[in-house]
């Protein structure tokens, strides 16, 4: 992919996707926590 050796492509290219996914997971987790907190009040 992109004329890179498989090792480089496999280990380096997915990282932007991994970070964005982590950010989205954390966003929805924190939003859920807030809703649980609001429901308890």
């Amino acid at each position, binding site marked *: 992919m*992109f*004329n*890179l*050796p498989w*090792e*480089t492509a496999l*280990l*380096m290219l997915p*990282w*932007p996707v*991994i*970070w*964005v996914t*982590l*950010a*989205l997971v*954390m*966003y929805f987790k*924190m*939003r859920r*926590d*807030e809703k*649980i*907190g*609001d429901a*308890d*009040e």
Partner: protein
Amino acid sequence: MNLDIIVFFIYLLAMLGIGLYFTRRASASADHYLLGNRKIGAPVTAISMQSSSMSGFMFMGGPAQAFQEGWHALWYAIGDAGGSIVNLSVLGKRMRRMSQLLGALSPVEYLEKRFESTAVRVYGAVVGIIFLFAYAFAQFIAAGKALEAMSGFSYEMALVIGIGVIVAYTVLGGFLAVAFSGFVQGIIMLIGVSIIGVMVWPQVGGLSGLNAQLAEIDPTYLSIWGKDLVYYGQWGVILGAVLIYAIGYMGLPHVSVKHMSMEGGETTKNAVLWSAGFNQLFTFTPYILGMSAIIIMPSVSDPEMVIPEMIYMVFPGIIAAILLSAIMAAIMSTCDALLMQAGTTLSRDVYSRFINKKASHKQQLLVSRLCILVGGIVGIIVAVYEPPTVFALVIFAFGVLGNTFMVPYIASVYSKKANKIGVLCGMVGGSVTNIVWELFAFQNATEIHPFLAGVLVSLIAMLIGNKFGTPPSDPILNAFDLAKENKRVPKKLEKGIFDDLAPEARNISCFLETNKDIQESAIVNWSIKET
């Protein structure tokens, strides 16, 4: 006066304007001056956190590394791209809440109050003052040299003008000026690097074209192990390269303070998204530009100047001048945050804590400003003479700060068992390991990055030390539970309404001081009310 200088002066005036704009608001209380009254929103938190972390390295050191090592240098960009996402996810909400519950205004004060130990504060303040100032002074030197190269001024004149503006807006506007200028500088950096990227992209034939041409010159440019495979099989080095930025920022006081200044715990979730967007758009491009320089300007004499030279090669006149301001923005956004934090440590953790414990609100504010001003003036003098000891300290600065504070900050909000002995052992173990690893070049023998070694030793030392200290007091454990739970902390506390009545959240502050009983009951009352 040429166009570059006019554009650059406009940029400097804009930064000065930010400082002036926030002067009055910053003067309201020490809380306003040191933490922006804990009212900083998500976009400013996220972008200023990243811009103050990255420094001029992103426009000079990073591209130079990519120019010399090829794709291996991207490991650092990968860590950087996740740095503030990890930082906010791990520490964000909990540290924000805990710091307000403890009434802490500086990251070192926060550790003292959380772990109920004067020794923690003394050690933290000593490490903080030495390495934050050394780090700041090195950034001053970088700023002076960059400005000298761009403007044609003498080095001394460039220092006085460039650093003078940074010192002025930091002294005037305090944390608010630093945060908002960091936000503006981050946007300038993103726009600048994107424009350069768009112009250079077709010249190298996109990413595929770039890689094909690099492979023709030397196939090892494309390897994860570095040019000529110098790091072949050294996973410890690669892991350290990623982790130093991915988790290392959590240990930098001038970065972690952004958690304490957020508008509320809920700001964290939006800040995480802002970080994700900004980082993925920004962090990789300077490194890819560094590799592009291997193709389009292979004979560049100083690899650190590949981006400035690329700008002059690709863009004419005014555009080049604007883009060069982006480089100064990267340097300045770190300079001001470091100066602010070093001054805060000096005023809050030394003067207000040990010299004049009963300092009035006005005295604290004045001393904070004086510490930053004096620090800035000394910094300019140091930068003029460039003493070798500063460079000797700077080599350790990032790693030592990260290894000293990272484990304690994480433990402060995730471990109930962590106590003062454990944390002190972790701080000393982490910092000493990093220095020893660097001094004796243990990386070569062990194939383990100094930062990774420091983290491991700091963690192990803390776990062992925890066996010997006394458990945290009940009020601290109550604050710990309040900070971690899903429920919202009472709005009055979250929004800092009490601060308007009593600056510095004194009503819930200072477990070590005379009003301990009042604070214990305040936290217990909130805890009971919540449950």
